[in-house]
């Protein structure tokens, strides 16, 4: 077997980044109105240089569609995909389980309760559009995490991964029942909640892009920092302790970073399932399980996957648009069965 590099090399960063940029440009070009690549690139370039020089961006119809609608949407989708995929890789490494994901850990469901509550009963923060939903989702993601970890700790001093997964699954069911209860009492907000629950980034704005980018940089840095520790966890928690990893601290830090990132993503894009499950698994097949290579790779591949899923969501049944969560869950369900089958077969 060929030796794998210990870390993600510069050339690999360049290739993954190039694929991500090309995918983003293609996704910006295509849609109900297709725009030539040259016009797309020149509109984006014009807007970027204009931001620095103070000159006005191009004002053609195509440029407006690209700059006001498609570009923020594609960027928000890419950042959401990168974040969810990064969280999935971190959780799978931490819990040494390729079927783990923030969604089956209970954190996404907890965030969903917070967001549904906010939409149904109109919590808001004056002066910050949609900030109520975002803060509510993040707070509930944290509360969920604290509940899951507290219960796990009371049941099992060592906070073993199996206990966390079990409590996470039970919490997911509990949180789903609460969300259903909220929907029952949501009155005329039922449609908004249901559409949000299916996941959509169709109305994403640049402020969403800024929030998503900021949270990815901040909380993603925490996950990247613990790449070596995640390797130790992926080999075995007992082994991690024996080689000198502070298992309690790493577990809390990574899970808090994951819940914060998921909370932000859920509040902006709704529940987008399976990205965090499928992408890390597929990327691991290409770059191997070493998290110093896997984490950068899944960040790019998650972005590419969700951009393509979003493209499919808005073009397959055009002019009707599908919620992005429907596309990812449709693809993800098949992939989940395949992974589960391979995992069982490998025993």
């Amino acid at each position: 077997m060929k030796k794998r590099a210990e870390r993600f090399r510069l050339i690999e960063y360049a290739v993954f980044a190039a694929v991500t940029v090309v995918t983003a440009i293609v996704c910006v070009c295509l849609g109900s109105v297709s725009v030539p690549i040259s016009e797309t690139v020149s509109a984006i370039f014009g807007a970027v240089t204009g931001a620095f020089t103070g000159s006005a961006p191009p004002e053609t119809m195509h440029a407006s569609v690209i700059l006001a609608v498609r570009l923020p949407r594609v960027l928000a989708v890419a950042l959401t995909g990168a974040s969810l995929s990064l969280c999935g890789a971190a959780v799978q490494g931490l819990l040494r389980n390729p079927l783990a994901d923030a969604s089956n850990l209970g954190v996404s469901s907890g965030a969903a309760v917070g967001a549904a509550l906010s939409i149904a009963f109109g919590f808001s923060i004056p002066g910050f559009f949609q900030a109520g939903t975002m803060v509510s989702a993040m707070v509930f993601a944290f509360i969920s995490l604290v509940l899951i970890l507290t219960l796990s700790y009371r049941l099992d001093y060592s906070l073993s991964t199996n206990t966390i997964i079990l409590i996470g699954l039970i919490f997911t069911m509990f949180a789903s029942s609460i969300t259903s209860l909220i929907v029952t009492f949501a009155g005329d907000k039922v449609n908004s909640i249901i559409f949000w629950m299916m996941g959509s980034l169709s109305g994403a704005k640049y402020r969403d892009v800024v929030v998503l980018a900021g949270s990815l940089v901040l909380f993603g840095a925490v996950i990247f920092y613990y790449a070596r520790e995640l390797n130790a966890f992926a080999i075995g928690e007992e082994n991690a302790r024996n080689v000198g990893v502070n298992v309690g601290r790493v577990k809390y830090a990574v899970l808090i970073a994951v819940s914060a990132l998921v909370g932000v993503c859920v509040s902006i894009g709704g529940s987008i399932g399976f990205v965090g499950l499928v992408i890390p698994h597929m990327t691991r097949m290409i770059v191997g399980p070493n998290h110093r290579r896997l984490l950068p790779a899944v960040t790019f591949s998650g972005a590419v996957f969700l951009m393509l899923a979003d493209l499919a969501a808005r073009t397959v049944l055009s002019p009707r648009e599908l919620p992005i969560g429907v596309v990812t869950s449709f693809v993800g369900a098949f992939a989940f069965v395949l992974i589960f089958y391979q995992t069982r077969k490998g025993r």
Partner: protein
Amino acid sequence: MLNVTNLTVRFGDYTVVDNVSFTVSPGEWLMIVGPNGAGKSSIISAISQAVPYTGTVAFNGRDIRSLKSKDVAKCFGVLTQKHAVGYSFTVEEVVRLGRYSFSGGFFSRNEEVSEAIIEKALRMTGLEALRNQSVLTLSGGELQRAFLAQVLAQDPPLLILDEPTNHLDLVYQRQIFELISQWVQETERAVVSVVHDLSLARKYGTTALLMHKGKLVGHGPVNDVIDSEHIDPVYSMDVRQWMVDLLSQWQKEGGGT
């Protein structure tokens, strides 16, 4: 080197290790023996901070609980009997993790010294040819050697082994015990190991600690502790006679002298 004082481990109302004290000095290979449920592995778990305990575990005079996790790993390396690796890491990646306690964060680089120690560990355990192979494809013996190489790469003064050859055939048992026997010859090194095989304990150990129902019932030079007077009541059988009977089978077949 290692000083364990009044160590008690409880799981709920059940006391699995009851007020055990012992010391380990450089050059010593302490064999912890006793029947199933005697509390042998719980002593190892407590020393490696995997279970809560009362009492004190001190290394070179410093309470282990006051040390950072990385500093504990520099005091001793632990080799357990079972490994369930989740993903297809290569042998080298597993061994390299042994240097974790000497490393920094994401952007740090392994020093030359670490590289040399990793190479030595791979060479000592005969894993150089398998270094790029996935650990998921290894046999039980090869996998145990990979984790032994990881502990050797950790380069601790004290090795703690929990039934390290439990699932291995005779060839690997001998290989691993011989390797550790060579390792402990170097200055200021010691080994603590839990073993079931009393013959292995007598052959390789210098001292022994005999446990029975959570209590320490014998501690001293290995041949003084693993003798009929101490072990027969603990195992409720004539252990020596059993061993002699086993050996006589070989002698009858002409396989021994």
